[in-house]
């Protein structure tokens, strides 16, 4: 059975259909990239998948369980987690505390009334471990608001790991990163993809075609094409959509 | 960082209490704690009350039993919660044993609660609610203004005898308003009148068009109103605007000179019960003249309920202290006050203090608005009743403060 089974998914904002009758199956394992010009509905697709907004029509099955109507904090339990296109952090907390918020929830410590959050050794260790994996351990005590943009993007990604998910939805994790940082994150994504299913929204075509097993092309809220990088590369519709010629 | 908080705490505490520390002088003055509104919407009513007190004190030469008297004022902000706090500070810090004042009943009740707990004397000047001298009466509280029983029944008696038998009631919807209507209804039913209808309107109502349309729609020949404060000023204007006076006679169970004075002459229409009228006798006329000179900016140019009650309160306290021979023993002063005949009340007949209910009993004056009048001549006296005739009888009000 496939990981995601999406049938007839539609979401309209007023007259404009951001996602128009999308039906696609997403398989287990490896990296899948979603590409498409700006405004193709990629972020809306992510919002629908993670329950942040409710679709007007259609159904989403995750491992054959219906998650269409669930809210984000319920979908997390199924092992789905996401990072954000526009960095979304807890600005007044330190880098470590940002991650601790996730790990303490995951370890079930979140409702302790009298246990001091900064003295829970096991929660801190798990958080530091996650920061190690993305190479940010040295920034643990810095306020999240003061670290450079690149590191904030990586912190956003690492917070998605705190709910030890099976499926990771990363919304443009590379946007605004320096060359070195892009390399670092690509390796992180590669190692993650062994253990997790990674769904990536990305504009960097060489990166997309080099690391992804399957590619889904969205255009005006509809599925233009879905398949191996090879078939997508020489698909005229995809090229015309990107080169701006309207399909006849 | 820790030390800064500590210093800041101590600093503000010390800063707060400086002014009060400096008030104790050599010869021990008699301190009277006056609690009435200073700021806010009712500030001018409070000022009027205090002016009456100051004037009475001046006439006594500022001394009782030879000791100088000092009026210590606290702002009640027409709020029971704040008034209670300020009065407690009076008692605990300044050791004040004599309290006075309050423009509305909720503040009077709050101060009475503190006075009972701390066993100090409190003379409520202007709260009219019945509870003050019935269900919530306490040994440590006296009340100068007549109860709504006297005012309501006086207005009701005059109306039933002269104006008509079909009444419509317009009631300010809080406990004071209810008591005014209750006593007027008492007179109505006892004299075979019929109640055509009643509308209660909430505090803070500024627009009475809805209520007055209902009044016009009824075929009553008397509109009995119990309303006070700024709502009442707006109501008076709209009574004229909707030409209610053409259709029926308008009667107020209590009206303040201060509320009507700023209105247009043609809005001075209707029959009102009031506690005092400045032109009752020459003594009051002279006193009003003197009052206007000393306090030109006061809310009322003449003696109105507010300043008259303040005046009588000081005179009563002075006579009681003289009779008791002490200004410090509260129990003795209470005993002296009970049954006291207050002669310096600018009236021909002294005010009698009923020992059973601690209610000051004097007169209730019925007046009729004078649309042609100008300046202070806004109404003319049509009947004077003796308050004892209408106050709550022992059956209606079983309270007896003389029994321990």
């Amino acid at each position, binding site marked *: 059975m496939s990981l995601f089974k999406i049938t007839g998914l539609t979401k309209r904002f007023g007259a404009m259909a951001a996602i128009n009758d999308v039906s696609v199956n997403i398989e287990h394992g490896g990296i899948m990239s979603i590409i498409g010009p700006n405004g193709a509905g990629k972020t809306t697709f992510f919002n629908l998948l993670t329950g942040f907004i409710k679709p007007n029509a259609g159904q989403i099955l995750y491992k054959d369980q219906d998650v269409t109507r669930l809210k984000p904090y319920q979908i997390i339990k199924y092992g789905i987690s996401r990072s954000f296109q526009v960095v979304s952090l807890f600005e007044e907390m330190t880098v470590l505390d940002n991650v601790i918020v996730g790990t303490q929830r995951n370890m079930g410590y*979140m409702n302790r009334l009298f246990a001091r959050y900064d003295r829970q050794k096991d929660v801190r260790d798990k958080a530091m471990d996650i920061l190690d994996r993305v190479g940010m351990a040295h920034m643990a005590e810095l306020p999240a608001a003061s670290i450079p943009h690149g590191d904030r993007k990586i912190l956003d990604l690492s917070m998605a790991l705190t709910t030890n998910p099976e499926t990771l939805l990363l919304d443009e994790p590379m946007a605004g990163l320096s060359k070195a940082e892009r390399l670092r994150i690509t390796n992180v994504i590669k190692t993650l993809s062994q253990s997790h299913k990674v769904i990536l929204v990305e504009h960097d075509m060489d990166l997309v075609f080099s690391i992804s097993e399957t590619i889904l092309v969205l255009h005006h809220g509809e599925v233009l094409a879905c398949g191996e990088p090879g078939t997508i590369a020489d698909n005229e519709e995809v090229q015309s959509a990107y080169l701006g010629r309207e399909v006849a | 960082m820790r030390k800064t*908080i500590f210093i800041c705490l101590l600093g503000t505490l010390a800063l707060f209490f400086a002014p009060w520390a400096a008030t104790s002088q050599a010869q021990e003055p008699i301190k009277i704690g006056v609690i009435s509104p200073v700021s806010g919407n009712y500030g001018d009513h409070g000022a009027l009350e205090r002016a009456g007190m100051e004037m009475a004190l001046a006439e006594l030469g500022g001394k009782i039993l030879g000791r100088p008297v000092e009026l210590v004022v606290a702002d009640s902000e027409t709020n*029971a919660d704040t008034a209670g706090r300020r009065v407690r*500070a009076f008692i605990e810090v300044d050791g004040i044993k004599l309290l006075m004042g309050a423009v509305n009943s909720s503040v009077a009740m709050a101060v009475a609660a503190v006075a009972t707990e701390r066993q100090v004397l409190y003379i409520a000047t202007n709260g009219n609610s019945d509870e003050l001298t019935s269900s919530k009466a306490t040994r440590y509280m006296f009340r100068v203004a007549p109860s709504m029983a006297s005012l309501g029944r006086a207005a009701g008696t005059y109306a039933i005898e002269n104006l008509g038998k079909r009444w419509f009631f317009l009631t300010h919807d809080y406990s004071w308003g209810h008591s005014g209507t209750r006593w007027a209804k008492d007179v109505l039913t006892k004299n075979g009148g019929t109640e055509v209808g009643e509308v209660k309107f909430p505090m803070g109502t500024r627009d009475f068009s809805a209520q007055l349309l209902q009044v016009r729609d009824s075929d009553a020949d008397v509109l009995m109103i119990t309303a006070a404060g700024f709502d009442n000023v707006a109501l008076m204007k709209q009574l004229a605007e909707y030409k209610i006076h053409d259709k029926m006679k308008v009667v107020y169970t209590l009206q303040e000179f201060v509320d009507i004075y700023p209105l247009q002459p043609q809005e001075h229409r209707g029959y009102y019960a009031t506690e005092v009228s400045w032109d009752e006798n020459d003594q009051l006329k002279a006193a009003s003249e003197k009052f206007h000179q000393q306090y030109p900016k006061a809310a009322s140019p003449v003696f109105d309920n507010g300043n008259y009650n303040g005046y009588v309160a000081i005179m009563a306290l002075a006579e009681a202290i003289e009779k008791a021979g002490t200004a410090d023993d509260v129990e003795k002063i209470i005993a002296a006050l009970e049954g006291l005949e207050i002669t310096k009340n600018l009236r021909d007949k002294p005010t009698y203090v009923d020992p059973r209910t601690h209610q000051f009993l004097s007169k209730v004056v019925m007046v009729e608005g004078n649309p042609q009048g100008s300046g202070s001549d806004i109404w003319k006296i049509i009947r004077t009743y003796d308050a004892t005739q209408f106050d709550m009888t022992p059956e209606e009000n079983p309270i007896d403060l003389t029994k321990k």
Partner: protein
Amino acid sequence: MRRLLKDPLLWIFLVFALYPAIPYIGNFISLGSELLLWFIFTLSFNLCLGQTGLPSFGHGAFYGLGSYAAAITYLKLSGEGGGFLAPLVGGIVVGTAAAGLLGWFIKDKRGVYFAMLTVAFTQVCFGICWRWDEVTGGEAGLSGIVRTTFLGIDMKNLHNFYYLCFVVFVIAALIIRSISRSCFGLSLQSVRQNHIRSQYLGYNCNMYKFVVYALSGAFAGLSGALYCLLTQSAFADILDWSKSGDVVMATLLGGGTVSFYGPIVGSLIFIICKNLLSSLWDHWLFIYGMSFVIILCLFPTGLMGVFKRRAASKA
């Protein structure tokens, strides 16, 4: 032990433990008790505003309902026979129930709408209490409540009652502080700072808002009940939204949004300056209004915000 000495809460406890002994200031014993109750109320209010970002502009409703509940429990239940605990429990129960009920209905609302719904709630309560003569005594309020003995200590004595309030304040302050520093406290902070990200980490934000609102209602009910016993009466005036505005102003003045001690410093200055100003000048409201504007314009995060920023710049 050394760490304990550096803890500001300990210094605050010390100051207020010695408060009655302070030469001149100590005479204001009732004001002292009231300050302690006001601290409990503003600290629990700050659990909503400073910790979870809930602008509860009608929080006075739970304080007022708590004091009414205590008065009614006393008059109906324990009567003359004494009974000091029943009114306190009544206050807490009604405070929690009212906050829970309102919290449940507005748990998904945010910002201005949340604030206005709480104001609507407190105004409706005020309207009802002001008119319901049979139960709440209407405008004349409820009186005739007498502080009897509690655990063998005669509560009529003001100093005993002051120290009862002090003990309750110490317990409440420790509980609230530990909550604000606990894992649960961090969860609340995550709801305030970024409720979208917090949902994606698995937190049911609306439920947290409801729970913290009910919890703070309990403390507000408790302080309201103790206030009723202090004044031995209960009036509808506390329920008016301008009273609720006072608690918000005090917390902001002190810097509640950035520091746990903000509400304490804020309410201390707020109550004292209000009393001090009003004895100095008839039109004190003008200074009061203007100074509030100036302070908040210069120090948006309130006084404690200034201390914190200077401490941070030194670090």
